[in-house]
Every structure is written in C-alpha cells, then in structure tokens.
C-alpha cells in the first residue's frame, strides 16, 4: 500500500516535470527546446511563453485531468470499463451546445459554456433513459448502444449547423469541435474553465471513496447506508459539467477518458482512493504530451483529437492484447 502511494507521488512529480519541459518546447526561436535564459532578453519569447504556452499547457493539464477523472467516474458508476463521456453523448452534446451558442446566440464565452453544459447533461440523460427502455441485451450493451445513438444525433445536429454557419468565420470553428484542439487558448479561456472544472473535480476527488460503493449493485450500496441514486447524480453531474466546460474550449477529445482510467487501474488497482487521483495525473501527462506533439510536430497544427485517438487507441490495442482488462462477465 505504501508502495502505491509512493507511486502516486512519483506521478505528481512527473506531471510537474513534463509540464515544465513542454513549456519550453516549441517552434520559436527554432523548433525544439527553448533556452529559458532568453526569457530575460527577448520580450517576444516572454509573451509567447506566458501568454500563449502557459495558459495552453494549464488548460491541457486541466483537460487531461478532467477527462480522465470523469472517465473513471463513468466507468465506476456504470460498472463498465468500456465507457467514457464521449460514448454517452456528453462530448457530442457539449460540442453541439457550444456550436449552437456560437451560431445562434452570438455568444459570450459564458453562454457558450452554459449551452455546452446543458446539452452535455441532456446527452447523458437521454442515453441513460433510452438505455432503460431498451429491452435487448445486458445493461452494458444497452448503455453503449443508446450512447452511440444519442452521440450520432448530436453529431448530425452539428453537421446541420455547418450549413447555417458562415463558412469563413464560424464553420472552421465547428470543424474544430469535431477534431479538437487547443490552438486558440488564451488566459481568457483558461480562467473561465478553471473554476468550473476545478470545483467539480474537487467534489469528485473528495467523494472518491464512495465511487467504489457505487460500482456495486444498488441494493448492496443501499445496505451500506448510501443513497445510490443521489450519489450517482452528484458524481455524474459534476463529471459532466467539468467535461462540458473543457470540451467547449477544446472541442471533442476522445479516448483520454476511456484509456487513462484503465492504465490507472492497472497500476494502482481499482480502489478509487488512489486510482482516481492517479487517473487524473496520468490524464494530465497524457494530454500535455499529445498536445505538445500536436503543437510542434509539423509547421501546421494537428488537431489534438487526432493525436489522442491515435495514441489512445494504440494503448487500447496493447491492453486488449494483454488480455488483462479483467472484465468478468
């Protein structure tokens, strides 16, 4: 047990190290590592690091922590290691809400956030409700199927809005939702997202041990003195709001919420006392890594969602081949 707690500390240190390395990696003044000394002599470098890279990295850290943490919450609550917010209509709902606010409500950033949160929660609710009504297959299949359906509805909604969008200013923004990226993050976006996602994730962090109990049968959780319905709601809404907040500035980012909790459980076991914060830290490292790749691999930026999908799916295949997902059915 002490060994695993040490592991968590190590993870925290790696987050900090990776963060600072990424802060000085880029394409200015050349591609590669920037000597921190030039911060004192070059005002452009200073502005670059403090006004562009720093908020971007902080947001990317938040993004990874939130997606991974929410992914863990979803997986525990639905007792299903194969769900993530993206599968249950949350990501698409958030993107739809954000796009909707941009086109029709001519959006302040707060309205975009609100709209994203609203549709994200609706997405989750719809997936859940439909899954309850379906009479086919086990709970897991039902949930995934209805999640796919709800996601698809929101996706096509986004597609339809593409037609209404101004192709020059609004449309590229919408395409960006679908692929995800952090290239337009400034301090403004960070300070809007930070309080929302941090408070939600803090709630989840403080309550994290209860998540174990929620992964049991409802009647068992009940017998242990928990109101499973109430706690589920608290967890799901917190996770969804936090995710929606991030997605509304970063676009849809898949796979982080699915794969990072797996890796965390492999390393730290399933007890969420450790595995939840571990997932959050791992998520942070993962996203910072992917975002740095997206940022500096080529002259042009690659959408972040593409990198997370590639690497995330890669990890997933490795895990599958290892035959150790440990799902007992």
């Amino acid at each position: 047990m002490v060994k695993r707690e040490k592991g968590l500390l190590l993870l925290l240190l790696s987050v900090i190290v990776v963060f600072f390395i990424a802060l000085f990696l880029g394409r200015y003044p050349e591609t590669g590592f920037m000597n921190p000394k030039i911060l004192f002599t070059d005002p452009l470098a200073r502005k670059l690091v403090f006004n562009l890279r720093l908020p971007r990295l902080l947001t990317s850290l938040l993004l990874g922590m939130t997606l991974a943490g929410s992914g863990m919450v979803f997986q525990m609550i639905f007792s299903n290691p194969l769900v993530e917010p993206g599968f249950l209509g949350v990501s698409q709902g958030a993107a739809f809400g954000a796009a909707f606010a941009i086109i029709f409500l001519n959006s302040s950033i707060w309205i975009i956030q609100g709209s994203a949160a609203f549709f994200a929660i609706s997405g989750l609710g719809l997936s859940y409700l439909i899954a309850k009504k379906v009479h086919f297959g086990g709970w897991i299949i039902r949930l995934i199927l209805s999640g796919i359906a709800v996601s698809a509805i929101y996706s096509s909604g986004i597609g339809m809005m593409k037609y209404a969008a101004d192709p020059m200013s609004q449309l590229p923004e919408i395409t960006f939702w679908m692929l995800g990226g952090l290239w337009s993050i400034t301090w403004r976006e960070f300070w809007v997202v930070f309080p929302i996602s941090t408070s939600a994730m803090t709630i989840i962090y403080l309550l994290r041990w209860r998540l174990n109990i929620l992964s049991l049968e409802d009647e068992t959780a009940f017998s242990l003195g928990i109101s499973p319905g109430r706690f589920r709601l608290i967890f799901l809404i917190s996770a969804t709001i936090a995710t929606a907040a991030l997605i509304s500035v970063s676009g849809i980012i898949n796979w982080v919420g699915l794969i990072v909790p797996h890796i965390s459980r492999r390393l730290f076991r399933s007890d969420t006392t450790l595995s939840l914060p571990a997932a959050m830290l791992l998520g942070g490292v993962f996203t910072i890594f992917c975002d740095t790749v997206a940022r500096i691999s080529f002259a042009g930026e690659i959408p972040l969602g593409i990198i997370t999908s590639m690497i995330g799916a890669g990890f997933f295949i490795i895990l599958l081949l290892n035959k150790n997902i440990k799902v007992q059915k």
Partner: protein
Amino acid sequence: MKKYSFLVLFIIIFPVVIIASGNKEINTFIEVEDTTGQIVKLEKIPERITFVGKASNIVADALYMFPEAGSRVVGVGNTNQRNGDFIEVLDPDYSNKIYLEHSVGPEQIAVTNPDLVIMKNFHKNGLGASISQLGIPVLYLNLETPESYVKDFEMLGKIFGNPRRAEELIQYYREQQDYVSMKINKVNANPDVLFIYHSTRDGVSAFNIPPESWIQTRMVTMAGGNPLWVDANPGNGWSKISLEQIAAWNPEQIYIVAYKEDVLEVVESIKQSSEWQELRALKNDKLKAFPVDFYSWDQSDSRWILGLKWLAKQIHPDLFSELNVEEMTKEFFRDLYFLTDEQYEKEIKTRLGW
C-alpha cells in the same frame, strides 16, 4: 494533498504572468481602423510584415500593388490555388522569405519576428487573437466587395506610407467599374445567367451556387445579367444544386469556375455529356469558363475587376465590342503589378491559355 501542490504552482506563476505581460505605452505614429472595427496602432511604418492564413493569395494580391511590399514583407503565406504562387512572380526575393502554411500556429508566425501581421478578417477570433496575445499588431483586410476594396486600399496606403499609390488604385478600380456600369445602365434586357462552381469531393461531382452577398453574384448583376439562382441559396456559403434544378431554370448563359480542377476540362466534359445537350445555353454555345491565370477571375481577388469586364463583354457583347480583353489584361498586370511584357507572356498568358 495533491491538490495543494497545484495551488502552489498557480500562486507562483500568477504574479509572474502579471509582471510579464505589462502594458507598455506606445508612441502612436500610425493609427488605422480596419473593417472589423479594431484600431491598429503602430510606432512606425512597419518594416517586417507577415501575411498568412486562408485566402493569403487575396491578401498578397492587394499588398503587392504597392511597390514597397517586396522589401517589407518577411513572412509569406500559401498563395497557391492550384496554378502556382503568383507571389513568386511578384516578389523577386521570394525564396529568401519565410514560408507559412495555412494552418500554422502563432509560434511559427512569431519566428518571422514581424512588426505587423496582415490576415483576412475571418481569422480574427482564432489565429488573430492568439497573435495579439504576443503583442504583435494584426491588421485584418476585408477585400470581399468593391466597397471594401476602397477602405482596404486606404489602410494599406497608410501602412506602406504611400497614400498616393492607394489613391491611384482606388481610382483605377472606380474608373473601370464606372466604365461597365455606365454601359449597363442603358440596358433593358438582362439575360438569365447561371453561375456555378464545380467541385469534386471524394470522387463525387457537384455543382454549387454562391449566396447573394458574395462577389460572384454581384458581378453578374453589375455585368448586366440576371442571377437567377439567388433565391435558391439563403445560406452563407456554397450551396449544392442538382442538374435537375439547372434544367428547370434552363438559363440563357452559364458561367462556370472550378478552383481545384482544370475548368476547361470540366467544360469539355459537360459539353460531351448527354444530359446537358438540351439546355439552351449549350445549344447557343453560351457555356463559358471564367478565365484563370494564377487564380480564377471570379473571386474577390484583385482580378475581380478583370472578371467583371470580361463577364460584361460575354453577357452583352454588342455593348462592349471595343473592349479588347487581352489588352485590358496586359494593362492590368503592367499598371498594378509592374509586370514586364516578358513576365506577362511567360506567367500570365500561358496560364490563361490564350
């Protein structure tokens, strides 16, 4: 416990941020208000200009009408629409400049160390906002309508410190526009004209019509034609139409463009296809491709004035009989871009296929 480490991190970083991005007072030498409503303040005439982003060709074609452009531009965007980069011809020093793809991030742009970045207006909320964070002034050009060209030229005149040249350009465009409009005003009958953009995406061929606000539609009206597709596109961008709809309209004249393909090949294949044979426009040999040198003449690129005159002559040949298209083209490139006859023959005429 772990949460507190992050709090500590933020507490350290926050004051540094405040200090680092302190606002400096600039002595304003040039003050320009662009068409997005923002005011750009510069200390001196910019000597390191970077232009970048989508529609870089349209931006470049406006910039390089000023003789100073070549010596002041340091970062160049992608101006290739399929037929080459016109800017290679315009800027003899092109190979020494830093090339920037459409999708670059602000860091890449920062490498060019510009004192002014010029982009099309639609980049304002995205790339433009990021660049502004670096304290680099950004100027947004509109260049979408004849009216905006006037404003944009005035702005560029200030930027290059050459208001006289700006006046010349404004006057040129106004004169040419008036030339067409004076003749068109006397016209009674406006033939039904269809303008289509042919695109092939994933092997699927499609015909698209522009919305009412775009310059393609306005050009048809200014050239004395009746743009009969206007009600069919209430949106803000290209809208697909079916062959059936085209047949239903049965326009008298059809003008076609194809940015990513050889438009002449497209015209040929249409002429061969059986479905189009019955259309009026084909029977009267009134299906024409817009001229293309480096760029098609229908876009809001500087060549729109050429496109307008050419189109007017096509729609009302009797009114513009004295207009020599080749002459006007040569004149355009000579007066506006300082091309020599040799350059005209080699770069422009060959691409036009005349």
